[in-house]
């Protein structure tokens, strides 16, 4: 480009707007795999976005609900401490007591990144209802006392500026930089103290609007200053101790409240603070919900529901849960994983355009294009469905697009109905089995869900043993379980007949109760009593089970009325389960809703960098996809990148590698690649280019951490990986 300027210099050229237009792609433009048409991909993208927005809102709501209890108790704590600051009466006890700093020890579990949200909502709530002065400290910003004080001052005084802007602009024409800590300002507690008295006096004096505001907040004219230490474990103990000692000197002038975020256990407080310092604090413990419970709620609200059409297959769910349980305990990561699978589903599955609500899906199914119909025909589940049909219908399905669309609509409807029944029945079965000894079908509903997704649950051994145990359930337990079942099933409209059946059973049980009350002195009653007495002595669960089983088999001939009824009710439940808890794979068109590529998800979420590097070095074909690199066995292809050759050669060496030998070997291999006779003298000669390539490859290996320079021997490098001689 040229300028009209005569002088030399740097000129800024703004990019022309035309250029911008061509380069800026919308997010949805990335959303096709190269084959699908743009219209489809756009609507898929929109569906995905709106679905994710809904799911996100739901998770936020769930997490807020879960946190309410602990947040409420924390707020209560803050209010109480504030009140105790304000009621500075001259009674004897309060005068005599050492003035401790009220401190809340908040135990949040080991996954630190998850805490950010809790603290965010906590500080928002505090600011809303207790005090405008809330400071959040993070250990990485507070390596020394000076930084701690600086952070506190900046956050508090910066805040005061924004408050003044809102409330009383004309109040103080004088110094505008009141809030911004100038270079001149001393970062000390005394400054903070001065600021606090100034602020509180100002709010106490004239402006009536502000007064009303502060009184409505319920904290009077001296709102406390809340300091939140987000990750207590990572703070330097010395800094923390000094800060506490200093703060306690000013507690009379500034009402301070501390909140410690603790990841491990409250003992760490004693570990970090000596008695002389911890005696300055008045520590109260708050324990948050355990993360497994948290996860259970999130799964309950996001996965085990018909609200969202998107579903996870058994394998994917297992990957997500195992990452949670084995690796990080992080609910946030679980939700991120869910988001990733959602995105990947809509990205990779062209038919996911149908993955939306019932009405919407039907209208979309009507407008399917020819390619979409072809895609449907290629779905394995649809093929299976076609095979089951009459021959003429088969032909129709394979030739007529209209026919496919019609069938798709009805199949989608069936799938929705299937989901509507599946979840209540699943919950019902869980309610029945979750209290059984040893939890044959899992303690958590997610385990049962996992089993049901994989295969026909009634064919598993666990199901067998669970029902065997159920057949031995006492009456009151059974009736109670049945009651909860009917409660659960009542939510589903389509399961009315099942509910009716169960209610009838319950009634009959109760009838039986009354009957047996009348005919109490039957022979059966005695027989029932005797073995029970014997049972009470045995505490071993296995023994108990065995003896019960024996009893069961012994008395198959003459069953009491209750036992007959029990069998009947369990048969009824069994039939409900068999009817409704089919695995989704059995349903045609399940691919539309279920995301099943667990491998992709695992690769993305549980990355193995070391393995990836090793594969790249051992087998460059895997990543470069060049035919020349294909090699069998452990042989080095001559045409491989330099670093691969060098890596392969270094595998043959011991702990120390002679650089010159290495270079020689490398030169030979490369010469062979160039087509020269490896034995000829010309090939053996090194040229500068080869030398440079070798050096670059070696330094790349060093960068990757395979070798390092050593001083033990000249011209040698040390190998950092295992293996070799």
């Amino acid at each position, binding site marked *: 480009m040229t300028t009209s300027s005569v002088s030399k210099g740097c000129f800024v050229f703004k990019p022309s707007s035309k250029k911008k237009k061509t380069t800026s792609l919308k997010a949805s433009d990335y959303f096709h795999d190269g084959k699908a048409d743009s219209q489809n991909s756009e609507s898929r993208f929109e569906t995905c976005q709106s679905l994710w927005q809904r799911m996100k809102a739901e998770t936020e709501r769930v997490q807020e609900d879960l946190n309410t209890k602990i947040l409420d108790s924390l707020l209560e704590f803050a209010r109480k401490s504030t009140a105790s600051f304000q009621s500075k009466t001259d009674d*004897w*006890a309060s005068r*005599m*007591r*050492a003035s*401790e700093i*009220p401190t809340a*020890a908040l135990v949040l579990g*080991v996954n*630190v990144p998850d805490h950010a949200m809790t603290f965010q909502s906590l500080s928002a709530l505090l600011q809303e209802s207790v005090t405008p002065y809330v400071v959040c400290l993070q250990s990485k910003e507070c390596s020394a*006392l*000076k930084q701690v004080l600086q952070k506190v001052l900046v956050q508090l005084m910066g805040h005061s500026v924004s408050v003044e802007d809102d409330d009383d602009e004309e109040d103080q024409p*004088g*110094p505008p*930089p009141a809030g911004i800590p*100038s270079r*001149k*300002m*001393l970062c*000390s507690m*005394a*400054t903070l103290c*001065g*600021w606090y*008295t100034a602020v509180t006096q100002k709010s106490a004096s004239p402006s009536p609007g502000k007064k009303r505001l502060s009184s409505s907040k319920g904290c009077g004219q001296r709102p406390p200053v809340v300091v939140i230490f987000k990750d207590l*474990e*990572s703070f330097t103990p010395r800094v923390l101790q*000094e800060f506490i000692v*200093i703060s306690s*000197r000013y507690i009379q002038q500034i009402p301070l409240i501390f909140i410690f975020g603790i990841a*491990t*256990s*409250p*003992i*760490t*407080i*004693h570990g970090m603070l000596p*008695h002389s310092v*911890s*005696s300055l*604090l*008045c*520590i*109260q*413990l708050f*324990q948050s919900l355990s*993360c497994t419970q948290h996860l259970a709620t999130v799964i309950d609200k996001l996965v085990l529901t018909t609200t969202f059409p998107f579903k996870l297959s058994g394998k994917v769910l297992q990957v997500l849960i195992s*990452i949670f*349980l*084995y*690796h*990080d*305990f992080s609910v946030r990561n679980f939700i991120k994983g869910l988001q990733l699978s959602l995105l990947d589903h809509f990205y990779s599955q062209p038919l996911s355009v149908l993955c939306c609500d019932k009405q919407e899906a039907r209208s979309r199914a009507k407008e399917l294009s020819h390619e979409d119909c072809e895609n449907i025909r290629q779905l394995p589940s649809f093929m299976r469905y076609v095979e089951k049909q009459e021959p003429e219908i088969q032909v129709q399905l394979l030739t007529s697009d209209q026919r496919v669309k019609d069938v798709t609509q009805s199949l989608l409807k069936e799938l929705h109905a299937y989901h509507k029944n599946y979840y209540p029945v699943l919950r019902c079965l869980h309610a029945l089995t979750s209290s059984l000894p040893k939890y044959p079908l899992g303690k958590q509903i997610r385990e049962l869900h996992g089993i049901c997704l994989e295969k026909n649950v009634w064919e598993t051994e666990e199901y067998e043993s669970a029902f065997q145990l159920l057949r031995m359930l006492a009456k009151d337990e059974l009736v109670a379980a049945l009651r909860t079942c009917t409660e659960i099933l009542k939510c589903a409209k389509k399961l009315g007949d099942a509910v009716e059946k169960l209610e009838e059973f319950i009634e009959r049980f109760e009838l039986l109760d009354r009957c047996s009350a009348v005919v109490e002195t039957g022979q059966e009653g005695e027989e029932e009593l005797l073995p029970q007495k014997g049972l009470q002595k045995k505490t071993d669960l296995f023994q108990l089970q065995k003896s019960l089983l024996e009893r069961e088999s012994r008395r198959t001939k003459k069953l009491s009325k209750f036992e007959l009824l029990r069998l009947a009710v369990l048969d009824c439940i069994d039939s409900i389960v068999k009817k409704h808890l089919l695995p989704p794979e059995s349903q045609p068109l399940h691919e539309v809703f279920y995301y099943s590529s667990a491998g992709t998800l695992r690769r993305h979420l*549980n*990355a*193995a960098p*070391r*393995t990836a590097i090793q594969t790249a070095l051992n087998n460059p074909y895997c990543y470069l996809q060049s035919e020349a690199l294909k090699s069998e066995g452990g042989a080095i292809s001559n045409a491989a990148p330099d670093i691969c050759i060098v890596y392969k050669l270094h595998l043959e060496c011991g702990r120390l590698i002679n650089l010159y030998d290495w270079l020689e070997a490398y030169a030979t291999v490369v010469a062979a690649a160039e087509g020269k006779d490896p034995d000829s003298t010309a090939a053996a000669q090194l040229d500068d280019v080869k030398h440079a390539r070798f050096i670059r490859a070696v330094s790349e290996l060093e960068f990757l951490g395979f070798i*390092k320079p050593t001083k033990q021997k000249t011209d040698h490098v040390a190998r*950092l990986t295992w293996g070799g001689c």
Partner: protein
Amino acid sequence: MPALIQHPGFSELELRCVEEKLVCRESQVSMLLSIFGEPQQYSYPSVFIYGHAATGKSFVTQTLLREHQLPHALLNCVECSTSRLLFEHILNQLCAHSPSPDNEFSSHTRCDSFNDFIRLYRQLADLQQQKSTTYIVLDRAEALRDMDANLLSGFLRLQELVGGNVTVIFLSEIVWDKFRLNTGCFEPLIICFPDYSKAELQQILSLDHHPDYSADLYASYINILLGVFYSVCRDLKELRHLAALNFTKFCEPLVKGEAKESDTHRLWRNIEPHLKKAMQTVYLREISRSQWEEMQRKEGELHLKGLSAHAHVELPYYSKFLLIAAYLASFNPARADKRFFLKHHGKIKKTNFLKKHEKTSNHLLGPKPFPLDRLLAIFYSIVDSRVAPTANIFSQISSLVVLQLLALVGHDDQLNSPKYKCAVSFDFIRAIAR
């Protein structure tokens, strides 16, 4: 009654007033007063006062200076983390300046070095035309040792440097020997504040009796309290705190009318188990003051668990194994690894014996550092299933370090086999392994 403390520079009345406030410190007070001399007289350049926590060092100096209205500056050295803060605080106090919005929270003048401080101090002294001695009190003077090297020696001879009537008083819990610089310095006058004896504690604590009850009753209460706590705690502040917390419980039988004030034995029986419980809980800050009061109000119905009771930590599955592996690597010698973790090894009986034997001695030695490779090798051998070396495993190690369950030893080279130490106890590991 003739006053114990006599001094020509101050009136009888003032001295009487001081004496009333400063009980059991008569000899120290008179010593200090005689060092101070009359207001206009030059005093000794620097005085070093030491004694345990809560022996009245700060209180005595503060009261003396305030009561006699001597010009002074009181500083806490912990609060002044840099020398600039220290200097500016002193100057602020001497010219009665405090940070406020009107002065943009700045200090009186900017002062960066000792040299500036001397100059500014001289200016200030010229300005104020002060005749009487100015006192600069540096509380918690032990923090000075970690600051600039010239601070301590400079303050010791401040009088000489500024050429004015100034005395620096150092207060510390540490003896002077620990302060002495190897380059040599001006030796201050040293005054020791000894611990209060049991009788003195009794006397001081009995002073603040409850207005609703007689002084004798309170004195007997203090007697009981000291009987329980004197063996573990001689800190006056802490004792006062405990006395205040438990007094309502002590008075309970009196309020209910079950006992009279003279019924000392019954009162003792009532309060003694309660105080013992307090020693185990509220004194150690296992449960907080407010919770303790709550408990008293509810008559001990709810049993509160202390902080230490919540020792359990929930960890992800592999983190547990990593921590166990780290523990094994820290407390087992590396040469024994082959014996412990290799599957096919014949001499099982012998190794078991050896393991037990070695463990006891190794526990006494404390955790030893181990390289990352060894940790991972042990980890793979103790986990049943195959675990891919994913990024998650490595991030778990670093998050264990953040949680201070593992400690990173020597962080010079992260690429080249970092070394770790296990920072948790055997009991912790046992709870995890369960």
